[in-house]
């Protein structure tokens, strides 16, 4: 299962806030913008994303889980490529260790009971 682009709607509803209340807290004119974020029709700016974190008390990576997964996947892919390239050039050990850590960091493995 691929994560949704964001879970703003879920966390907003959990907090018991309406779209207009959230819009007010974010300092935007109308709730339309919130609706567009929740429908994945628009991506918030970094400032807005940070404001979401402050309001809902949830880290950005959890709020925007789908985006986070995509970014992480792309970064890992590039890190793997860079590590291969640097390994051929006898690069600094520390640099290779950092790249290896990026590649092996696994946030896509979670502890769950197996499905039957």
């Amino acid at each position: 299962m691929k994560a949704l682009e964001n879970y703003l709607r879920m966390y907003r509803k959990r907090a018991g806030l309406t779209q207009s209340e959230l819009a007010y807290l974010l300092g935007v004119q109308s709730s339309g913008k919130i609706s567009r974020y929740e429908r994945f029709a628009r991506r918030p700016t970094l400032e807005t994303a940070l404001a979401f974190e402050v309001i809902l008390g949830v880290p950005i990576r959890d709020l925007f889980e789908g985006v986070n997964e995509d970014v992480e996947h792309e970064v890992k892919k590039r890190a793997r490529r860079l590590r291969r390239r640097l390994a051929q050039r006898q690069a600094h050990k520390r640099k290779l260790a950092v790249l290896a850590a990026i590649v092996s960091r696994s946030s896509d493995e979670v502890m769950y009971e197996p499905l039957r």
Partner: protein
Amino acid sequence: MKLRRYARKRILAVDPTHRGFGYVVLEEPDRLVDWGLCLVRSRKEVATLVRVRRLIRHLEPEVVVVEDTRHPGCRRGQRVRDLLDGIAAAAAELGVASSRIPAAEVRQSAATIGVTNKDAVAKLLSARFPELEPLLPPRRKTWVSEDERMAVFDSIALAIAFSKVGAITMIRTLTTLKRYE
């Protein structure tokens, strides 16, 4: 045991009412992603199917769960039976699997732990998912029709019953909840 994230499923459960439908979207094992009650005024069947299609497209569930109307114990009217068939057909059209769980199975699971009515099941479920508490209707009087908000609780009961090993999970979940009641 470690499992890949894709082993989980996103489940959309829908339960029609006399003027709309209640729905929940549950990500296994127990993350309630979305829930609500959709009220439609005119052309109820068409409007309901449009809304369900929109939910499927937006939330991309792996499976759509509805009540099994072919079960002999089903007490739904013809309109709702046709609507549930329509929902399953809409899911298939959008390439999503659908599953049918008999309401009797959900009731039986609850009965094994001494919960014999929908009000009690709804109360237990709202204790497990506190975000649903504002939707919990007051206990129904025998001379009053069922509150439409109950459709949300019926949906989540269906989703839980479908999830993993169906009825066994439902029993286990409700038993755990009853312990804390």
